[in-house]
């Protein structure tokens, strides 16, 4: 990205003042090094978002921002419904409620080393992953609507998980206000056989070791100890969410003129929050969020079963489940007053600071866990929402490393077999049905996640708590 359009506000904060149709400034949180790596499209997209009706505060880009669709990936923006604010498909993305859930096993490295290979094989067999995979659960029409209303609670009622899981999931496992009737027949059909599946691409299930604790107080509250083993699951709302995105993107593009909305980019397709279309999309997103929560709940159950067979002493307590592709109604202090706004986070993680009422009581004093996924050969991080991040980003932080090169370029540079062998030599077992997929997800295809989380901490979005490194990775 060129520096000439940016005004440096601090070492890690860059502003693009309003010009043209921009209603608010665009603010990018990044180091000089990250700015150099960012595509110019990030600035262009953040500026486009700043021009949408009803936007408040600023259009933000997180340290891992990269070129997305409509919004940059790593984009955050809030809209006031009382000021003709909009809700945008481009602000949520195709994979509604894609997110990360982390489970504390209560085990240490030596427990895993004793069974590592067979554990990887059993996880590979038990976790449906990759293109064309189906789950063992097949939904009826009635089940589908119940799942879309109930989320992880629905899964729990069917025996997937433990009651105490719910308090460790955003929205207590069930997003209120879902409208299954706003979800198309096509979207529901895509999901009939995909419950409890991981997906493909950058989605994964990893067995990880805590290699470093940065903040002992917060780590203690989270129950994290150096050397402990965790399991993290990264996936979303599967085919249902993808189809909701497709359906509403088309409808909002076609109807934008009727709502007197001039779209700077068709991918920013949006509708007034108070319009019929806006309300339907919100209801569909909330159904998609429940689908993702149910999906991760089922995958948790399958994972626990595998551990129970091999390592019955594993506790497998849920640390937290948080999404990074959502639009949610939240209260924030903006322009001197408390306002209810719809916060879009596209490839950005909600990161409520200490004391927020929506954080589980046991964790409330230290802040919400922010789960940051890495690539399969590098680190992942657990952060905690910083106490004064509301005015910086509507309490949001980064979500991952972000790609440094395209899938096409990665598959030209690496061979999947070589990537698997090299990682095996480093003690990381990769299980995937596709070598080409592994090549496209090679660790070198991603940016250095450590720089991203360092900036997130230095700018005051979230605090670093723990660094995790993979031992086993199940890829789709």
């Amino acid at each position, binding site marked *: 990205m060129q520096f000439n359009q940016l005004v440096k506000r601090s070492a890690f904060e860059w502003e693009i003042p309003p010009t043209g149709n921009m209603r608010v400034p665009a603010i990018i949180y990044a180091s000089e090094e990250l700015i150099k790596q960012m595509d110019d499209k990030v600035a262009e997209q953040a500026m486009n978002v700043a021009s949408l009706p009803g936007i408040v505060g600023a259009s933000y880009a997180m340290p891992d921002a990269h070129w997305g*669709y409509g919004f940059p990936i790593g984009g955050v923006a809030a809209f006031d419904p009382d000021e003709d604010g909009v809700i945008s498909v481009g602000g949520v993305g195709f994979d509604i409620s894609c997110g990360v859930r982390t489970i504390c096993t209560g085990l240490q490295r030596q427990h895993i080393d004793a069974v590592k290979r067979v554990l990887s094989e059993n996880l590979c067999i038990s976790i449906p992953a990759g293109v064309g995979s189906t789950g063992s659960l097949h939904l009826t029409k009635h089940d589908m609507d119940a799942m879309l209303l109930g989320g992880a609670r629905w899964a729990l009622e069917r025996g997937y998980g433990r009651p105490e899981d719910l308090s460790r999931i955003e929205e207590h496992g069930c997003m209120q206000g879902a409208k299954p009737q706003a979800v198309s027949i096509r979207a529901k059909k895509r999901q009939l056989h995909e419950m409890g599946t991981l997906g493909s691409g950058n989605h994964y299930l990893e067995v990880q070791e805590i290699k470093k604790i940065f903040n002992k107080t917060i780590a203690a509250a989270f129950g994290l100890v150096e050397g402990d083993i965790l399991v993290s699951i990264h996936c979303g709302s599967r085919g249902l969410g993808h189809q909701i995105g497709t359906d509403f993107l088309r409808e909002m593009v076609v109807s934008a003129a009727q709502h007197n909305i001039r779209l700077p980019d068709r991918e920013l397709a949006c509708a007034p929050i108070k319009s019929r279309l806006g309300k339907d999309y919100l209801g569909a997103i909330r159904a998609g969020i429940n689908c993702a929560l149910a999906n991760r709940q089922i995958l948790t159950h399958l994972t626990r079963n595998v551990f129970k067979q091999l390592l019955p002493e594993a506790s497998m307590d849920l640390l937290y489940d948080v999404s990074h592709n959502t639009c949610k109604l939240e209260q924030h202090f903006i322009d001197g007053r408390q306002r209810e706004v719809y916060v879009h986070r596209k490839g950005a993680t909600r990161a409520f600071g200490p004391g927020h009422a929506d954080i589980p009581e046991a964790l409330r004093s230290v802040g919400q866990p922010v789960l940051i996924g890495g690539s399969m050969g590098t680190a992942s991080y657990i952060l905690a929402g910083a106490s004064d991040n509301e005015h910086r980003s509507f309490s949001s932080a980064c979500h991952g490393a972000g790609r440094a090169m395209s899938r096409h*370029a990665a598959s030209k540079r690496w061979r999947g077999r070589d990537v698997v062998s090299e990682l095996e030599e480093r003690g990381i077992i990769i299980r995937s*049905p596709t070598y080409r997929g592994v090549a496209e997800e090679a660790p070198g295809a991603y940016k250095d996640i450590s720089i991203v989380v360092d900036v997130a901490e230095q700018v005051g979005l979230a605090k670093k708590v723990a660094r995790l490194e993979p031992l086993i990775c199940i890829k789709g």
Partner: protein
Amino acid sequence: MFKMSFEHHKASTPDASSWEHFEHQADIGVRGLSYTLAGAFEQAALAMIGGITDPKAVVCRRQIELSCEAPDVELLLTEWLNLLVYEMAVRKMLFGCFELMIKDNHLKAKIWGEPINRRRHQPAVEIKGATFTELKVAQQPDGRWLAQCVVDA
């Protein structure tokens, strides 16, 4: 199925039509080129399949007929690719041969493919949807039609 008298566009020679991927940092840019609009759409579909597997590895043994429409030709491209994404998802199939007719922003297609064979196809990634990013359908100075967009993978 093909009751309307559409002009049937088909690529005339192998080198007149082609597909390629173009750079997009997060996902896959798909581009089809052909001397006909329908041919460019066929090639764009091959490019999208090429993001998943080698299209030549897909055995075209089962035929399906599809149709869609849109307010303009660019939206028709995303509609067409999204229809394929949907059919691949619900049928658990991959497609490798396409025959299209396009008239007045209406598209009818015969497509051929087979069930996904993970060992043989080695599918790299599932496509979530076709986007409006870098969306363009236009005739080029050399007379060929270009049909392109980024697909979310």
